[in-house]
């Protein structure tokens, strides 16, 4: 085919009607390649696939690939794919999926059991429910609030035949199209104005709260993706009102940014940073907010922190360059209000100060009362973090940074001499605060302020101040040593580390020679020399000095921090990690330590894989006395709540670990036969988790082995309360009952076991044995004169074994059949007795049982055993035995019976002959003359049953 024809054909193709047949010539590589008409190509492909013109697999493939280039979403390209199986994935991928699924299954199992245990709180929740909708409103289907459509259209609903005639394409176009109509305004469903931003979750359990809060957050995410930011904020707020979580705060911040609600966004960022100081997203978002609020300096600070952690973060890089550009555009004003004090103190040429002035100035329109503004003050901990970073990476931040920490502390030292290292640290902090306050340096300004105070200010004051300082007394140091130390400090400040090192070494030497007993001062000297070593890059020596300092003063902050840095620089990350962690235990607000821990964690995971923690040396536990908790301002209620949640989760986890350990120990003791030891362990376990069925049964075993049957029985009862079908618990209770010589209870327990699992041979054996014992005991009881229907129980167990006021005292009596004669005190006993009687169809026993049961207790006892059989059995018992003896009691029983839960449902399921019994009973009852009830009462009652 020549190019010309192709061209003409192509021109034609624009006018081709797609319903027509595709000419054979078009089924050609050349034509297909040049064809740009997607619809026509689809048609060609269809023809090719149909095979009407012959089968050309390669041409089909070519056509497909060409079409894909033009329109990758074309429907014709959709192919049916068989379902994938495990085999169609790589091994890694599949095992990952399977592992994921497995962990989820385990988790859900736990969730489920905890849910089950909490089910008793159901009623509470119900009270909180909205009322039932106005009853049985019915409205017709065709009544419509919308005026009827154009009469030319079909009246709806339409008939089958009518919709056969529809041209679907046309209709679809009409729906999507723009045909104009009149009539009322459009309804726009923007849910958020009516959306409550608070959820009352007070009645929910922890599990439910967690699920609910995640769900609300997810809804927020979805709204966010649909660019419905206001709705997203509303849902995030709902999530936060249930359980405050980091991601929800973080996401709400982003949504607020998109809505340009800068202050709200800032508040959320700050909350995140309060909970997790190194959170990258929050920092980035805060930078964005600062940027928009015109606070470029702060924005740049945050961005630099982000970039230090994630150098390849594109968003941060871009924003930083933007911010810096804006910063340059904004010219600083030399003297702004409210800066006076600072300017008086600081040299005016200080360019750091210029930056600061500008930052202050630009921030002014937004935050007029900066030093005390709520947001700023809560920002403070994080700001200090920035300073911490400055200590950590001094060389990237100009020469101001490193000095600040060092000299600052020593100024504090000079001013108020602290005896212990704890105090020493505190004074430093207070000094910082003083600097921040008086300098009005707000927050970030603290770095430059420190710098100017120490680095520049001191020389500016001249030598006079210096000499005074040099002779300042230093704790217990004799004047010559104090002078050496101060000289060292000064040299260090000036960056002459090697000289400072020498001075400190001299001081240390002199100190040791003089034999003064002041470990604090020696510790400081070592620590300072360590700093010099660190600056010189001599990490080995630094570590040695720090270790010495720590031997003198364990858990002192600075040597630890320095040693950590030294370790880190030597790439001994594990030791560094441990030291940073220790630092954090002493003072959680050391930002540099937080950052480093995060960084090292990542490195360690890379290095050691997921089990990196196991390779760590032990992290020493810092005594409370050495810990310093300092936070500015009371944290907001939500943050407190979040912290409490976190603490609760931690505590739970700890308890969990301890629990498993105890349980394991207990099990080991059992294996070794040391039952009393095991007993102790299990008891402790139960203190941690009183709802663990397995522990109860285990402890019951121990009691059994120790022949403490009463306790064993109590434990089994407890276990059965948690898990009503636990086989082991039944079996062990049977053994306990046997030990207590309560053979009837024993046999009923054993029967329960066998009913659940007929293969338990031990139970069968026991049952045989117990039946014999039961016979004997009954026979002996029969010989005793206790003949009449006893409401006074005969206790055959040793009296001292049953604690006073014990809930149950059961006994049995010998008749022709097994006669149940007991005073049930709870639903479980009642149920057992009832079952025993029913199994032998012994209505007399049941009557006895009912006679000894208070009528008003019947519904409670019966609630779990309510079924058709039981009801008809009870009815029969009442009818045959009790009615002649005590019709009043029968009436009262009947009067209470129908109040049992689910009674009406069960009643409906009664068989015909069972109903007959009921009718009979009421007939008999109405025939009885009584003072307690009239015929009318009986009739009323009967209506409830029949």
């Amino acid at each position, binding site marked *: 085919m020549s190019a010309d024809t192709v061209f003409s054909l192509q021109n034609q193709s624009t006018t081709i009607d797609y319903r027509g047949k595709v000419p054979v010539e078009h089924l050609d590589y050349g034509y297909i390649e040049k064809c740009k008409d997607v619809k026509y190509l689809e048609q060609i492909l269809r023809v090719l696939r149909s095979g009407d013109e012959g089968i050309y697999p390669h041409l089909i493939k070519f056509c497909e690939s060409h079409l894909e280039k033009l329109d990758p*979403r074309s429907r014709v390209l*959709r192919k*049916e*794919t*068989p*379902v*994938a199986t*495990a085999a*169609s*994935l790589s091994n890694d*991928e599949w095992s990952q*999926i*399977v592992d994921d*699924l497995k962990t*989820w*299954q385990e988790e*859900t*199992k736990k*969730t489920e059991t905890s849910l089950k245990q909490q089910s008793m709180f*159901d009623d509470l929740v119900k009270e909180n429910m*909205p*009322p*039932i*909708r106005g*009853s*049985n*409103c*019915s*409205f*017709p*289907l065709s*009544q419509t609030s*919308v*005026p009827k459509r154009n009469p030319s259209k079909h009246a709806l*609903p*339409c008939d089958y035949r009518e*919709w056969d005639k*529809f041209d679907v394409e046309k209709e679809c176009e009409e729906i*999507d199209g723009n045909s*104009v*109509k*009149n*009539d*009322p305004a*459009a*309804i*726009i*469903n923007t*849910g*958020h104005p009516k*959306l*409550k931003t608070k959820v009352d979750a007070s009645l929910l359990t922890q599990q439910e709260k967690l699920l*609910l809060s995640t769900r609300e957050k997810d809804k927020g995410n*979805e709204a966010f*993706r649909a660019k419905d930011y206001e*709705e997203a904020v509303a849902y995030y707020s709902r999530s936060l009102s249930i359980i405050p979580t980091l991601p929800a705060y973080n996401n709400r911040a982003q949504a607020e940014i998109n809505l340009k609600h800068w202050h709200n966004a800032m508040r959320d960022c700050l909350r995140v940073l309060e909970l997790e100081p190194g959170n990258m997203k929050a920092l980035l978002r805060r930078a964005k907010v600062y940027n928009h609020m015109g606070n470029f300096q702060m924005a740049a600070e945050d961005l630099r922190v982000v970039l230090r952690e994630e150098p390849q973060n594109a968003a941060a890089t871009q924003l930083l360059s933007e911010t810096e550009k804006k910063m340059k555009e904004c010219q600083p004003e030399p003297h702004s209000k409210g800066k006076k004090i600072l300017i008086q103190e600081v040299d005016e040429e200080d360019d750091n100060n210029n930056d600061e002035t500008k930052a202050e100035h630009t921030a002014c329109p937004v935050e007029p009362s900066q030093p005390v503004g709520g947001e700023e003050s809560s920002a403070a901990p994080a700001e200090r973090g920035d300073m911490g970073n400055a200590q950590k990476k001094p060389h990237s931040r100009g020469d101001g940074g490193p000095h600040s920490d060092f000299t600052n502390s020593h100024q504090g030292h000079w001013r108020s001499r602290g005896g212990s290292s704890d105090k020493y640290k505190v004074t430093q902090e207070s000094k910082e605060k003083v600097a921040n306050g008086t300098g009005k340096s707000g927050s970030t300004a603290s770095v430059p302020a420190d710098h100017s105070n120490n680095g520049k200010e001191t020389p500016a004051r001249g030598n006079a101040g210096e000499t005074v300082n040099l002779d300042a007394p230093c704790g217990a140091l004799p004047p010559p040593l104090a002078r050496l130390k101060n000289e060292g400090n000064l040299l260090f400040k000036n960056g002459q580390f090697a000289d400072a090192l020498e001075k400190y070494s001299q001081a240390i030497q002199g100190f040791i020679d003089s034999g003064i007993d002041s470990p604090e001062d020696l510790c400081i000297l070592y620590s300072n020399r360590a700093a010099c070593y660190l600056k010189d890059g001599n990490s080995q020596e630094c570590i040695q000095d720090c270790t010495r300092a720590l031997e003198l003063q364990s858990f002192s902050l600075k040597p630890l921090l320095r040693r950590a840095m030294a370790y880190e620089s030597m790439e001994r990350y594990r030791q560094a990690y441990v030291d940073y962690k220790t630092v954090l235990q002493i003072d959680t607000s050391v930002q540099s330590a937080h950052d480093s821990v995060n960084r090292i964690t990542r490195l360690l995971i890379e290095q050691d894989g997921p089990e990196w923690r196991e390779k760590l040396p032990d992290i020493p536990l810092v005594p409370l006395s050495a810990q310093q908790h300092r936070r500015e301002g009371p944290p907001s209620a939500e943050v407190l709540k979040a912290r409490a949640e976190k603490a609760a989760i931690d505590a739970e986890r700890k308890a969990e670990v301890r629990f498993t350990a105890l349980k394991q120990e207990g099990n080991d003791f059992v294996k070794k036969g040391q039952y009393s030891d095991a007993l102790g362990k299990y008891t402790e376990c139960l203190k941690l988790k009183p709802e663990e069925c397995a522990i109860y049964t285990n402890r019951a075993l121990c009691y059994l082995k120790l022949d403490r049957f009463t306790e064993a029985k109590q434990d089994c009862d407890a276990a059965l309360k948690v898990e009503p079908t636990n086989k082991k618990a039944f079996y062990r209770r049977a053994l306990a009952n046997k030990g207590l010589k309560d053979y009837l209870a024993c046999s009923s327990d054993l029967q329960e076991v066998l009913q659940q699992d007929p293969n338990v041979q031990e139970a069968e054996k026991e049952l045989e044995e117990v039946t014999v014992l039961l016979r004997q005991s009954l026979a002996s009881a029969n010989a005793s004169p206790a003949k009449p229907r006893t409401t006074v129980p005969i206790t055959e167990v040793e009296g001292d074994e049953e604690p006073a006021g014990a809930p149950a005292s059961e006994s049995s009596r010998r008749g022709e059949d097994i006669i149940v004669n007991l005073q049930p005190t709870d639903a479980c006993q009642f149920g057992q007795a009832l079952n025993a009687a029913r199994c032998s169809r012994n209505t007399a026993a049941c009557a006895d049982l009912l006679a000894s049961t208070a009528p008003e207790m019947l519904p409670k006892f019966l609630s779990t055993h309510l*079924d058709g059989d039981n009801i008809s059995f009870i009815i029969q018992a009442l009818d045959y035995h009790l009615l002649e003896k005590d019709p009043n009691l029968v009436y009262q029983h009947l009067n209470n019976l129908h109040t049992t839960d*689910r009674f009406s449902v*069960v009643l409906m*399921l009664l068989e015909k002959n069972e109903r007959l019994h009921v009718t009979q009973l009421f007939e008999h009852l109405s025939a009885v003359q009584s003072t307690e009830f009239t015929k009318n009462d009986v009739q009323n009652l009967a209506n409830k049953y029949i």
Partner: protein
Amino acid sequence: MSSPLAKPQIIAHVQKSLNYTVFDTKWIPCSAKFVCMGNFPRGTGVMQIYEVEHGDAQLIKEVEKPKPIKCGTFGATSLQQRHIATGDFEGNLNIWNLEMPEVPVYTVKAHKEIVNSIDAVGGLGIGDGAPEIVTGSRDGTVKVWDPRQKDSPVANMEPIEGETKRDCWTVAFGHAFNDQDRCVCAGYDNGDIKLFDLRNMSLRWETNIKNGVCCVEFDRKDISMNKLVATSLEGKFHVFDMRTQHPTKGFASVSEKANKSTIWQVRHLPQNRDIFMTAGGAGNLHLWKYEYPAQRSKKGSDDMDVGVAGSVNLLQNATLSTQPIASLDWSPDKQGLCVCSGFDQSVRVLIVTKLNVV
């Protein structure tokens, strides 16, 4: 869909053959268990509970009921109780405690004929307001029930006297974002879709999609109506943007054809409302993603807001069987886990991967 590797995969994890026809499957919330409902060849109903464990589904419990069970839902129960509400062939609505499934917790003769569809809201923390169950039946009525009220429905939507009774095939709750607002959407065999506003007790909107409506579902029940998907007998489905309702044009929609065969069911991913799966009559599943337009509403020529529909992207498809897949349910707890059952008398647990990256 940046690269083929990022595409979600539909993986058959467990397949179980059953000795009865299964009509509906539902995950039990907060567990790795699901319930299958159906009927035995001998004409009785059955509920089975399976637990997914070690790559297999273990039968935990089986209960036989006198009447075949057509559909079920957990939507109106609390997380602790987790009672299932079912509709059967005789028109009964029952609520069962799966721990003790012998006797129903609640029972009512809801309809004269088979209950085709059931949905519920207000439980499980999904949807504010009272727990309510809606049933749609062949007798043409749609009824709303409150499990706390015995015997009579709280709302009843029925054709007026003399009107032809259409078979209601599907019902769905939506718009339950606060205590008062709530909507029920019903689809009928003649292609009618009706939206009932339960707050005002009125018909809010209706349309016809020309073919029997097999399934309707809101993308979320517990938010202000956002999207509604309706699937039809001849293989098409429609996605309505429910945010902007034009007085005459109603809601904007986009339609897409998955297959030539009936789309039996549509289910939105519980973790992402813009992803949904359709189950087709030829035993295939299609996973879709809805893309919002740049502006969700615009001014029409009559100076009124009119909605703008987005577009629908096919993410993945898979053919499971030659028989229709009649029910599908995503696990509310585990993203990507779903269970589906078909008329080939088998139930399958599927895993859909990479849903978090699309």
